[in-house]
Structures are given as C-alpha cells and as structure tokens.
C-alpha cells in the first residue's frame, strides 16, 4: 500500500544521522522561506486593497501572473538586443513590468471597481472574479496556452552549500528584496503623511475626505503599489522557477490570499508573517508528512489557527464594540 511506503520512508528518516536530519531541515527551511517570501509579496497586494476598500481583489493573482509574463517579454525581446549588463537588464525588466502592471491596476480599479464602490462588497468580489477570468484568458491569448520559460542566460546561477545546506543567489535575492520591500512599505505607511492618509482612508472614507484627503487618489496609490509589488514578485518567480503559465495567477493568488488571511487581512506585517508561515508549513507538510496530503495539512493548520485566533495571527482582535 502506498501509505505503507510513505511511512516506511518516514521511519527510515528517523534512522538518519542527526546532522543529516539537521541539514535537510535547514534546507527545507530555506526553501520554505523563499516560497514564503513570494507569497508575502503577493499577499501584500491583497491586504492593502482589502485594508482600504474591504475588497478581496481576486484579480490580484493575475496581476502577478501578468507581471511575470511582461518581465519575460521584456527580457527576450527588447533587452536581449541591448548590450546592457545582466543586472541592469533584470532591473529594467522588473521596473518596466512593474510600471505597466501598476498602470493596469489603476485602470482595472477605475473600470471595474470604482463603479461598484458604493454597492455591496460581494458585488465587487464578483467583478474581481470576472476581471480575473478576463486577464487570465487575455494572457492565454497573448502569450499562448503553453508554458514559457525565462531564457537561461537571464538567470544568475550562483549556488552555495555552506555546511551542506544548498542556498542559491536567487533565493537570497528573493528573500532580501521581499524583506526590503516590505519593510519599506511598512515604513511608508507608518511614518509618512501619505501613509497616515492611507490608514485613515482604510478606516473611514468620508471622514478621510473631510480631512482634505482625496480618497480616489489614495485608492489609486494603493492600486499602484499592490499590483506593482505583485509584478516584482512575478518577475522574481519567473527568474527562480523559469517557467510561467497563465494559470499561475490562480494557484499563487489563492496561496497568497491564504497567507494574507493567516496573518490577519488588512495588516501589512501580517501579510509578511502569514506568507512566511505558509511557506514553512507547506515545506513541513511536504517534507515530513506527504506531498500528496500537504495542502490538506496546511489548510487543517490554518483552520485550527483561526479557531483559536479568529482574526489571524496579527489581525486586530476588535471584539465588536456593542
């Protein structure tokens, strides 16, 4: 029986020398954190839009997917012709993709969400799902239904194995960039006046207006930042795994949304913690239980966690004041 084999594997894992187990664990951890960093970046987009508009932007995963494709297209078409050094090409590809996706984000907000701002929240959710289906199929039509691969020359292949633990440059880059972006974003929201305006808008649109805050503009800013971060995550993902497909928005979007909920939706550090935790949980599930049952395990933990912390790890526990 298959379960027999799986448990035999688990049992023999116990017999491995302690050091090897440690190395394997550390390696799992590095990988979990890398995946988690991508989840976090995407989760930020969910959380920011949710925080300000109370909208679960189901199209966010697709911004991420399009970001990945755009980065790819920039690299293989325009930039490949140039004589720029690799790092400059990568930066340019990322920036261009980010700019384009931000623009798209603002456009989608204007066309599909703003007309619904005064309607029930679920109305906008359905609209977001419609946008998601639209973008996904648009990507399929533009880039084809087949998998595309980032060209090999675009990926810096640098690997280390300190103490037997495999770490690659891309992994460090992903973790580093994600962390920097998240800290930067957190500072921006906590320390600047515009950040305070964002927080105020998140609490109460009308009162924010009375302070002289242009709510439409704040929402535009949110739709520049959220999809922009998604695009960066998309390019990073493309570089790390190379292959991209139009369905990646759904699968990663769902994961990132899970991460945002896990951390407490609407909360920026929460998105980060949630993403990392999800990455690690997946790694634990696949590594120590069974990859086939991994998602069941992850969702089980998530549900248990929410039973005890109904608003996520860092979500405010506002018992509704009566």
């Amino acid at each position, binding site marked *: 029986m298959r379960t027999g084999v799986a448990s035999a594997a688990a049992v023999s894992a116990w017999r491995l020398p302690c050091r090897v187990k440690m190395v394997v664990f550390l390696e799992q951890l590095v990988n979990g954190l890398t995946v988690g960093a991508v989840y976090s970046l995407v989760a930020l987009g969910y959380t920011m839009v949710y925080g300000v508009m109370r909208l679960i932007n189901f199209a966010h995963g697709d911004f991420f997917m399009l970001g990945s494709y755009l980065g790819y297209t920039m690299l293989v078409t325009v930039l490949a012709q140039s004589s720029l050094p690799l790092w400059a090409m990568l930066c340019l590809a990322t920036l261009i993709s980010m700019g384009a996706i931000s623009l798209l984000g603002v456009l989608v907000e204007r066309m599909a969400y703003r007309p619904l701002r005064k309607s029930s929240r679920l109305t906008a959710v359905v609209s977001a799902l419609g946008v998601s289906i639209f973008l996904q199929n648009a990507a399929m039509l533009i880039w084809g239904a087949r998998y595309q691969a980032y060209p090999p020359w675009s990926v810096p292949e640098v690997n280390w194995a300190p103490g037997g633990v495999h770490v690659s440059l891309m992994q460090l880059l992903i973790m580093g960039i994600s962390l920097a972006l998240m800290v930067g974003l957190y500072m921006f929201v906590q320390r600047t*006046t515009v950040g305070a305006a964002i927080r105020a808008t998140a609490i109460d649109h*009308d009162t924010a*207006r009375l302070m*002289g805050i*242009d709510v439409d503009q704040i929402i535009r800013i949110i739709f520049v930042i959220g999809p922009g971060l998604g695009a960066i995550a998309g390019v990073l993902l493309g570089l790390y795994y190379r292959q991209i497909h139009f369905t990646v928005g759904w699968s990663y979007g769902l994961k990132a949304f899970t991460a945002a909920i896990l951390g407490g939706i609407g909360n920026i550090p929460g998105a980060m913690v949630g993403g990392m935790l999800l990455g690690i949980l997946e790694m634990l599930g696949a590594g120590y239980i069974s990859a086939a049952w991994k998602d069941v395990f992850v969702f089980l933990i998530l549900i248990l966690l929410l039973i005890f912390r109904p608003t996520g790890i860092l979500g405010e526990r506002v018992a509704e004041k009566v």
Partner: protein
Amino acid sequence: MSLLELKDVRIAYGSVEAVHGISLVVERGQIATILGANGAGKTTTLRAISGLIRPRSGSIRLGDTDISQIPAHEIVNRGIAHVPEGRRVFPTLTVEENLKLGAYKHRGHPDKVSSNTGRVYQLFPRLEERRLQLAGTLSGGEQQMLAIGRGLMPDPDILLLDEPSLGLAPKLVQEIFRVVREINGQGVTILLVEQNARLALRISNHAYVLETGRIVLSGPADELRRDPRVKKAYLGEK
C-alpha cells in the same frame, strides 16, 4: 458679504429627496445654529456644504465662489472644516496622528502643523496628556474634543459642528459649549447643529429651524428662544 450662503439647495439620497430647497446665510464671526427634529435634514445639509454629497440643485457659496460642485477634499482647502456627527475619530490612530491628518492640507509645512497642534492642546489640555494614546480608547467626551480639535487643524474660516453634545455627560456638554464659544472668540465662524436647543440658542447669534427638509423659522437666537413655537417643539415647554 456673508461668509457662507445656501440658496434653494435640494439634496436627495437616490430617488428620495431629503432636503427640499433650503436657503440660509452665515455671517463672518457668527455662531449660527440649525435646530430641528431627528431626520429633519440637518446632517444632510452639513454634508452638502462640506461636499460629501452633491446637492441636486441650488447653490452653496463660500465668499464669492460656488462650492456646490467641488469635491470634499478640495473644500477643506478653501476653509470649511466639518466635525461630523458621532465624532468619527480614527480609532486605530493616535491622538496626535488624528490631529496631523486634520492638518493634511498643511502637509509639507511641519512648523505650521506643530503650531496648530499646540493651539489645540492649549484649548484641550486633556488631549495633550493623551497624545500617544489610540483615539479609539478615549472616552466619549475626549473623542469629541479630539474631533473638534481635528477640525481646527486646517485653520478653517468656518467650522461645521454636528451635534457635538450627543451622548455626552452633562459636565462634558458644558465644557464642550464653553470651548465652542472660545473658538468663536478666536475668530472662527461656526455653524452648529444641535438637539440641545436650550444650550445652543444660548450661545448662538442666529438660528434656523429645519423641519422635514424645509426651513420653517429663522431669526436671531434670542428671538427664537422666546418664540412660543420653538418653546413648544424644542424646549419641551408648554
């Protein structure tokens, strides 16, 4: 020229008209009061002045410009501050952040912001004690003080106050009214909406009585105070 003037303003929510053509005038330096039963349209009128709702027709003039089509965030810059009904402070922001947001139009002028903050603290010493506390944890009275203080931050020419005494203990009501008078003394024109007609008429110069979206009475506050209709309907006197 009067500071604020509404002419035949009609306001509707969806297809339901809530205010059926009201006209009123607020002179510079005055305290003007709008009295009226619940649902008469007082809040609606203030929301139209501050731009939160577009009136269906009519004009709202601040000085010599019509502001009825200008978005709310622009109107603040032109000198109207609105302290909304039910305080509406930002509960998860600190007292000081709330005040800073009030001075959003002065962003980029930190010294202006800090001198205004100082002025508010002078008016409400209690807020200074709590400047780093989250606004949501303030008591009702303190929140009202914060809301008013926040309204003063953009240096408004005219302050719209919507039921500042709502839900406050008697002692605090007295304090709030004392401060409103003090603010007016500093040269800020005030348009006040109140249920507590007795107190409101006592401090204001001019008053309007609004009933189901229409102005039914207006005049100097002292006159209205002695008007039998007002006495009967709002002061509970026979």
